């Protein structure tokens, strides 16, 4: 391994709307999963109080529904921003759509997932925005969110008079009844839990192994890249 520069430059990657989306999404998903698991299997809280004086399970469901609205509109806002934001926020980031994208995907798969070492360390292959494998996992998360939105609002539609949940009223009959819809909704929650484990682990992994501010970038918006990498970007742009 050649000795390479450790002269890092601070680069603005994640714009404020992207960071805001991320943390709202974190809160919404955590709240939805927690309240959802309670709805699925309520704990046995034995109480001497009369039912008239209690409403905790109703409140739990209420929080679940509010968080669902927040998640949904937050997602729509992120979709809007994928057309408005910088290149790292662009919708094209989420699919390996060209030769370079596929090459990068294979690179990440080989060196980050399967932990092969490069024969010659090439800092140019450091990825600045989403790495392609992570981007694919976000696309999958997006699909999971769509499943939850369709099944969740489908189940909720009957309780609502607003047009928005009513848009999904067809879902339960399409999926063969509320029972099946509920099962799909329940199972998909585990997809979010598994995604969270992988996502948090890999964020820590990149921070630990690459030392380029992976985790802090989602707070401040800046990542660190090697000085040499900057030149190459400039050359390419010229």
């Amino acid at each position, binding site marked *: 391994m050649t000795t390479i520069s450790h002269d890092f430059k601070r680069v603005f990657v994640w714009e404020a709307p992207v960071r805001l989306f991320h943390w709202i999404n974190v809160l919404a998903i955590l709240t939805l999963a927690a309240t959802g698991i309670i709805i*699925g299997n309520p704990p046995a*809280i034995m109480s001497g109080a009369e*039912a008239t004086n209690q409403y905790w399970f109703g409140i739990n469901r209420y929080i679940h529904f509010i968080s669902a609205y927040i998640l949904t509109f937050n997602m729509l806002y992120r979709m809007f921003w994928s057309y408005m934001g910088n290149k790292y926020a662009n919708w094209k980031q989420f699919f390996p759509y060209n030769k370079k994208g596929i090459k990068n995907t294979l690179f990440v798969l080989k060196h980050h997932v399967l932990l092969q070492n490069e024969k010659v360390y090439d800092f140019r292959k450091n990825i600045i925005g989403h790495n392609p494998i992570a981007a694919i996992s976000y696309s999958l998360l997006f699909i999971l969110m769509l499943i939850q939105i369709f099944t969740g609002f489908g189940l909720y539609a009957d309780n609502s008079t607003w047009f928005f949940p009513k848009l999904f009223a067809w879902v339960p*009959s399409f999926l063969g009844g509320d029972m099946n819809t509920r099962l799909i909704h329940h199972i998909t929650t*585990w997809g979010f839990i598994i995604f969270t*484990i992988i996502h948090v*682990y890999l964020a820590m992994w990149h921070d630990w192994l690459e030392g380029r501010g992976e985790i802090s970038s989602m707070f401040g918006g800046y990542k660190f890249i090697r000085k040499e990498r900057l030149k190459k970007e400039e050359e390419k742009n010229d």
Partner: protein
Amino acid sequence: MNAAKNKQDTYYESIIKNGFSRRDFMTFTAFMAAYMGYETSSIAQIANALKTTPRLPIIWEHYQECTCCSESFIRTDHPIAANIILDKVSLDYTLTLMAASGHQAEAAKKATMEKYKGEYILCVEGSVPLGEEGVFCCIAGKTALEQLKEAAAGAKAIIAWGSCASNGCVQSSKPNPTNATPIHKIITDKPIIRVPGCPPIGEVMAGVIVHVIAFGKLPELDRQGRPKAFYAKRVHDSCYRRPYFDAGLFVEEFDDENAKKGYCLYKVGCKGPVTYNSCGTMKWNNGVSYPIQSGHGCFGCSEDNFWDNGPIYERLTNVPGFGIEANADKVGMVAAGVVAGAAVGHAIASKMSKRKELKERIVSGKDLEKQVE
């Protein structure tokens, strides 16, 4: 309906002839309007329709079923529904309740089908087996499929009574050896009202028929072809135990203190939250009770494939393809555990495989540390 062709009594005339008073008749009409969810002004409309409309001929077929729908129907809480609509006036053909039998019965059916072609209502109780060319259910030497197609050809509309006719019920649950099939999957060119339930509530059945008679058209149906008046609400949302649900007070086991107190049956598998029916509002047996009131959870008898929807006494259903005992949470926990384990393994493998890269960074970091003023 063609009055010249049909000189029979109107519903009202038959009712009076059967010894009921006008008061009985009006009570019945008010009952029906209330069940169907109409405003009071429509009572007169229904009464008027029953006074002027000649009887609507009905053919009632029985295929793969247990007759619980008929049993439910003849126990509707107002005797007129059973006596007049079912027993005395309308039914031209029904295996269980008609006086005629054998060739006479078949002849009566044939006569009705020819005389009232395009006018009669076909009521179907039971599913139709399609396996082995339908030999699992034969009536009068014909398979149920032949019988159904013949009867449906001249029908004005079809009412699919009960879960058998509207979604297949127990005989179509896995592995469905006779290939029992609900009516709407066989007859596609006629309007079909699906009235699921095992059985449907008697008053619901009467309400559907009275609607067809009184207004001369089908009731408003939902996406699954069920009358909205009776199947628009979840059992859960009309349940008298709902306050216990919102208060988080649940029966944990059937013999515990909470069960005696009448808490919510959600945790012992009540399917009320996923079932659309009128049990919570109309109840059964003249409004005496219904399953939840008797201390047993709803098991979703009016929902599609309810027999295959997992255990009756548990909240979570089994996940197909993961064995009998694997519910969604067990599968999820195992998967999350495997992933967490894989992450730990990956971290350890990274430490070994990428040691050079790490070491180099640590060295340069420590070098720089020394240069710090």
